[in-house]
């Protein structure tokens, strides 16, 4: 650690030390947290108040005499053998998300799924998964889920719905008219086989697979230089140097890449080497925030930068490749350029260049060129399904308008929201005779379809998915909650209607196909099948694909394309971290999850660089008018340190017009896309003018401040080598030392490994029944997350360094909160936990006032009591649901601690290190959180807490926290000041 600590700041207000910021740091509660509406009722005398109370009591007594609405609790007389009350069942399954899929383990209680984690037996994932996979359990219980088919807006039976569908299809086939099938992408080979059968039975079927938010540059580039559509998965276990051209590979979507990257970020003692991450990008991304060396560069110039690197690298170009002389971008210091080239040359095949999905094709070609020249061994080649682009959608729209299609089926897509010209789409769709929608939640596209067919949630459905050399299985973890069917079964029904032989249901189809095409070896198929369902995956014979030969002739044209620069502003549209392309808009957990960088919730403000904002006279929340080729959008701005000048960034997936949660949140950015552009996600020549008024953005970056003290330790490898470990502060205390007879639970959080992805926040929310509060309450600082990720900047506003710090209850030995509770609702357990007795708490909030870490959460309003089925089905029965007026906080997942202790006792053995894994530690893809017994000298947590990087936050306060943080170390090529 540097001997004098640099200044860390969480927001521009904090950095500027404005009077408002200083006052906010001083006040315990934000202005508005105790709103006038929460104050006691005034203007009534005690006499009248008691009179009203008496009258109310009399009426309530009358109402209570009613005997209607009685229900009975009926215990099992024949209990299903799989269900033991109080014991959880676990099922392996797969979470599908377009071009990706994640093998998961689903925990169920009394027959209903309540928690999702990664599949611990999956050799790559090792128990980790994406944040959206964790949160999608809420969608299973969404009260707005369609519960049965609808025909012309009225409920219908499946028999009627199938009859209408099959009649339309048969008529279309007889007349020789085309049928449009628009679906999302899928990684399921069985589904592909089924659709191929449908195409064979219905030759006029036109199938388009479309992912609206992903961008088209990657596919175009792969086709140009390799001749085929393919996906390159990063394999970073042995990568020494990683160069990112706008690639946000640490955003949580690829847990394997995160684990591999961070495995080289935990320098052991003595400190050896670390990998090095170079990032060139426009907006500050999660990957950029974890970079060892980062330079803000407009995305339109990344391709030129890549080709210039290839030119200066000095390695042989692939055959046929020609590169004209390209100067290095002027905003990269010459010394940095030299060091980057040196790093790439010395790493050789241990270097890899990654390009962001939203980048134009020429940037991807530059990345492929560099990887080919370096002969990088850090990429795995996987086949990719060729996807439809916007030009294909526009052609389909024109065909619909001309009356080409007799029927259109939309399955798992929402074109009315995502197609840039929704009006034209709807007008064209009206010309199609039969319009069918298949999906989970009624969305904007369902409104225009006469036949609406509800499909199963993936937790209720069967499937299989390709995952490199593995084939993962998706199996139901609960029977269908409503009268829904799997989307594939709609296809089977169409096949039966056409007279083709088709399986009765999709499970039978999948089972038969696996028996025929997947099963190998001497083990009987049924045993093989059962084992596959148990494990969740099988290994296939698929060999690692070799990278096809690089077509050098594509380089020249792409390099010429890269020379074109943008106008005043360029706008980057990227999938929302929380809502993706809008499909998760109705998920409250995801809407309320703070964006890892901006810390914005419930909306998508326009991110702008600080310099541009100052030039335009803008502050956070000011409304602006965005104009792109005749299309306009009005929205609030958010000043983003680290964003390149001239670059604007906006998340897709917001601005939905349907959905109790999603409706009206944020703005829809899809209409800004130019359909004819080769790179729809990067829009040039954008005009930005200051608008009128302000919108309050509910963001959490200024909440729960621990002001002005030694909170994060961050250093470079070189500087850290000179630091000696300081002895523990000898703090005098009046309190006696606590004795822990058996265990003392503690935690270590490695800031070098923590990338700030916030998967732990969602895991905790799912495990501990943490409620969502909505945008108005978040704006008042009342969000309820038990663990938060504090994001600290250091350095300049133009290009700050970033450190992420998970902050949760520190379970202090001398907890300041315990002494001030007037009713002793919070006290200390014999194993080191700071406990909360919810039913004892009277809500004085004195404990939260006294907590120096600001980790206590108060239920200001009744956030949960109104919830009935199905929403209440997601609750974990092992954790109390807290009512209004009660304080809550992290408990170190005491229910998991107790569960492990009971198991150990039943097995007549001690609790072993690794038996207890809190939800946050289980979910963390980089294993930054380690939990264990500090009384056990051999436990991992004890060993890590004694390392030289270890420190305690606010140690000088004397609270003796049970959590040790390990300092963040970076491996920059240029030291501070160079």
């Amino acid at each position, binding site marked *: 650690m540097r001997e004098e600590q640099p200044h860390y700041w969480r927001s521009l207000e904090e950095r500027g030390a404005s009077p408002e910021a200083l006052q906010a740091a001083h006040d315990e509660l934000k202005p508005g947290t105790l709103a006038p509406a929460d104050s006691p009722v005034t203007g009534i005398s005690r006499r009248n108040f008691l*009179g009203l109370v008496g009258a109310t009591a*009399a009426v309530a007594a009358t109402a209570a005499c009613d005997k209607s609405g009685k229900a009975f609790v009926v215990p099992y007389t024949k209990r299903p053998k*799989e269900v033991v009350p109080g014991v959880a069942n676990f*099922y392996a399954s797969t979470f599908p998300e377009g071009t990706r899929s994640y093998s998961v383990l689903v925990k169920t209680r009394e027959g209903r799924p309540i928690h999702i984690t990664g599949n611990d037996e999956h050799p790559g994932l090792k128990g980790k998964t994406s944040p959206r996979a964790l949160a999608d359990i809420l969608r299973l219980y969404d009260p707005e889920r369609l519960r049965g088919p609808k025909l012309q807006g009225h409920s219908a039976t499946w028999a009627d719905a199938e009859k209408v569908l099959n009649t339309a299809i048969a008529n279309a086939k007889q007349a020789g008219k085309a049928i449009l099938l628009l679906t999302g992408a899928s990684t399921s080979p069985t589904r592909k086989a089924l659709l191929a059968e449908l195409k064979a039975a219905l030759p006029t079927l036109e199938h388009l697979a479309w992912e609206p938010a992903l961008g088209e540059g990657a596919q175009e580039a792969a086709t140009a230089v390799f001749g085929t559509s393919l996906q390159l998965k990063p394999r970073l276990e042995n990568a020494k140097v990683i160069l990112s051209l706008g690639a946000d590979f640490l955003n949580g979507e690829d847990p394997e890449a995160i684990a591999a990257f961070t495995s080289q970020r935990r320098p052991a003692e003595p400190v050896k080497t670390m990998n090095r991450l170079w990032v060139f990008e426009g907006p500050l991304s999660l990957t950029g925030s974890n970079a060892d060396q980062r330079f803000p560069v407009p995305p339109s110039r990344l391709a030129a930068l890549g080709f210039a690197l290839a030119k200066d690298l000095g390695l042989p170009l692939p055959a046929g490749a020609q590169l004209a002389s390209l100067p290095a971008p002027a905003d990269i210091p010459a010394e940095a350029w030299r060091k980057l080239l040196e790093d790439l040359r010395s790493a050789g095949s241990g270097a890899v260049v990654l390009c962001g999905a939203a980048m134009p094709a020429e940037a991807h070609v530059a990345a492929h060129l560099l990887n080919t020249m370096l002969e990088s061994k850090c990429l795995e080649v996987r086949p990719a399904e060729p996807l439809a682009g916007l030009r294909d959608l526009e052609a389909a729209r024109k065909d619909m308008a001309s009356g080409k299609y007799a029927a259109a089926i939309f399955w798992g897509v929402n074109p009315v929201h995502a197609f840039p010209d929704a009006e034209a789409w709807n007008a064209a769709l009206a010309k199609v005779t039969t319009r069918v929608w298949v999906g989970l939640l009624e969305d904007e596209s369902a409104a225009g379809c006469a036949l609406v067919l509800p499909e199963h949630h993936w937790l209720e459905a069967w499937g299989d998915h390709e995952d490199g050399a593995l084939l993962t299985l998706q*199996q139901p973890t609960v029977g269908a909650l409503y009268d829904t069917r799997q989307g594939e079964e709609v296809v089977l029904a169409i096949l039966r209607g056409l007279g083709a032989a088709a399986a009765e249901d999709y499970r039978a189809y999948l089972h038969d196909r696996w028996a025929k095409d997947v099963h190998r070896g001497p083990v009987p198929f049924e045993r093989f099948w059962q084992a596959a369902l148990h494990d969740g995956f099988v290994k296939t014979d698929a060999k690692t694909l070799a990278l096809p030969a690089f077509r050098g002739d594509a380089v020249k044209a792409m390099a010429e394309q890269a020379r074109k620069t943008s106008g005043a502003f360029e706008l980057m549209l990227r999938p929302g971290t929380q809502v993706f392309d809008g499909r998760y808009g109705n998920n409250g957990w995801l809407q309320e999850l703070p964006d890892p960088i901006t810390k914005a919730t419930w909306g998508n403000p326009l991110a702008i660089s600080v310099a541009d904002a100052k030039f335009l006279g803008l502050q956070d929340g000011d409304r602006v008018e965005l104009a792109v080729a005749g299309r306009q959008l009005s929205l609030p701005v958010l000043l983003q340190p680290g964003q390149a000048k001239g670059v604007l960034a906006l998340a897709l997936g917001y601005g939905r017009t349907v959905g109790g949660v999603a409706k009206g949140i944020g703005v829809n950015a899809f209409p800004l896309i130019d359909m004819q552009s080769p790179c729809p996600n990067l829009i040039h020549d954008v005009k930005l003018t200051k608008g009128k008024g302000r919108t309050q953005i509910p963001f959490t970056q200024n909440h729960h401040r621990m002001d002005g003290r030694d909170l994060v330790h961050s250093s470079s490898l070189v500087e850290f080598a000179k630091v000696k470990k300081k002895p523990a502060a000898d703090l005098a205390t009046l309190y006696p030392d606590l004795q822990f007879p058996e265990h003392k639970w503690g935690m270590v959080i490695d800031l070098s490994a923590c990338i700030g992805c916030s998967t732990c926040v969602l895991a905790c929310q799912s495990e501990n029944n943490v409620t969502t509060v909505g945008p108005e309450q978040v704006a008042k600082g009342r969000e309820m997350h038990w663990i938060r990720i504090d994001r600290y900047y250091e350095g300049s506003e133009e290009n700050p360094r970033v450190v992420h710090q998970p902050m949760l209850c520190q379970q202090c030995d001398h907890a300041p909160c315990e002494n001030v509770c007037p009713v002793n609702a919070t006290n200390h357990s014999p194993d080191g936990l700071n406990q909360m007795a919810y039913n004892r708490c009277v809500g004085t909030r004195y404990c939260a006032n006294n907590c120096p870490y600001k980790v206590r959460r108060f239920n200001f309003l009744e956030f949960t009591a109104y919830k009935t089925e199905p929403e209440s089905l997601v609750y974990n029965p092992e954790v109390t649901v807290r009512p209004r007026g009660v304080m809550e906080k992290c408990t170190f997942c005491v229910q998991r601690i107790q569960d492990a202790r009971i198991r150990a006792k039943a097995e007549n053995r001690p609790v072993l290190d690794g038996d207890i894994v809190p939800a946050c530690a289980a979910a963390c893809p980089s294993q930054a959180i380690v939990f264990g017994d500090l009384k056990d000298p051999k436990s991992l947590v004890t060993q890590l807490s004694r390392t030289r990087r270890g420190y305690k936050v606010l140690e000088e306060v004397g609270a003796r926290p049970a959590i040790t943080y390990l300092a963040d170390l970076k491996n920059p090529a240029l030291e501070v000041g160079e």
Partner: protein
Amino acid sequence: MELKGRRTILGNLAALLAAPFFMGRATLIRALAPAAKKNSPLPPRISLPAHSVKRRG
């Protein structure tokens, strides 16, 4: 106790206590308790998956 205030309170109390006899109990209960909506949607049905294989439990 002020005469005017006592009359008001007793009058209110009497009216409230007499209300059920005029409104009818069913109406009063519906007014006080959340009413079931007509054509309320199908409640969710929790059932075990028929052919799935669990990992552990």
